[in-house]
């Protein structure tokens, strides 16, 4: 129904892209069909998690409990923070049993 072009929609904080310039671009009914990960929520955070891989046991508790789907698992099985999205809630650091995650203040 709609395509996302590289055109900034300046009304939104967080800067996601949308193609809606006129009424004719909109679908007839209010159907939203663009996956939300075009929205980067990085700017929400005050602290960011840093994983000390030396302590990490690959238990994936951090991945499991992340409310923002902001922890991925790379090809070698290490958890990786998706910094475009992480809101810095700190659940991963709190739940990490080997204490491998530290919340570091953003500059």
């Amino acid at each position, binding site marked *: 129904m*709609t395509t996302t072009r590289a055109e900034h929609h300046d009304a*939104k904080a967080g800067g*996601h892209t*949308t193609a*809606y310039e006129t009424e004719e671009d909109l679908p007839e009914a*209010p159907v*939203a*069909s*663009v*996956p*939300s*990960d*075009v*929205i*980067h*929520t990085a700017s*929400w*955070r005050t602290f960011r998690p840093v994983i000390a891989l030396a302590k990490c046991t*690959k*238990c*994936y508790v951090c*991945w*499991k*409990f992340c*409310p*923002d*789907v*902001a922890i991925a698992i790379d090809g070698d*099985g290490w958890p990786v923070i*998706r910094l*475009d*999205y992480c*809101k*810095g*809630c*700190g*659940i991963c*650091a*709190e*739940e990490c049993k080997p204490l491998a995650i530290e*919340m570091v203040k953003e500059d």
Partner: protein
Amino acid sequence: MARLTIPAEEYMRAGHSACPGCGATLVMRYLLKGLGPNTIVTVPACCWTVIGTPFPTTAIDVPMVDCAFEATGASVSGLRAAADAMGLKDVTIVGFAGDGGTADIGIQALSGMLERRTDAIYVMYDNEAYMNTGIQRSGATPRGAWTTTTPVDQAARGKPEVKKDVMAIVAAHKPAYAATVNVAFPEDFLKKVERAKAIRGPRFFHALSPCPPGWRYPPEKTIAVGRLATDTNVFPLYEVEDGTYRINRKLGKAKPVAEYLRAQGRFGHLTEIEIAEIQADIDTRWKRLLALEALG
């Protein structure tokens, strides 16, 4: 590669608008992991209306149908009827509503859906107040909790009434399956979703959804607070299937409820006496649940 204890596939996206540390997002995340892609979710006015992000984006990979606040149960029945009439095979219909939209304004429609035996799953994600509108009390707010409409002052000590027992109301309708789930126990959550998926008829989940701004705790504690809720018997994990109760988690000795209450600012005003009253209440309810389980 070490194994994951819950399915790897994601059906919820990043970029959603939930508060940091939101329990409700984990409810959706775990639910969809269990149900898979052949699912349609209908959502009334609630936090997830907004978490789902504004037009033109959507935060879940399965179709979502917004519905009116009171009407989740009816929306579920409508979707089920259409799916059946149109021969859409094996699609799971899910109603996903907050505690206000279920226990208060939505209770009639839920009751109707259960009584009609609509073949679908209804999930009440319970953050124990009208959170989307800024923390006003609901029927599911526990006794003693501060909310904006049950403030703490000279003549007021938070909500005076006890929490509405929605599982009991649901169980009275004799659903095919009903269960409590808690985001702090994802493996138990997923096991129950799998079980529900294999059953036909009306199925219900009461999902504890800890809320940092509403419950007044720092966001990193969502899982810890959720865990305490169950380990103090405030939120027992149990299932009801064909009238039989089955408690999923029993500690040798439950933790004192004070530990749960003191972890949250919304209970920060409670006196020792008030906490003792709440403990007595929890103990009575636990005994009753054990008795229900013993009935077999």
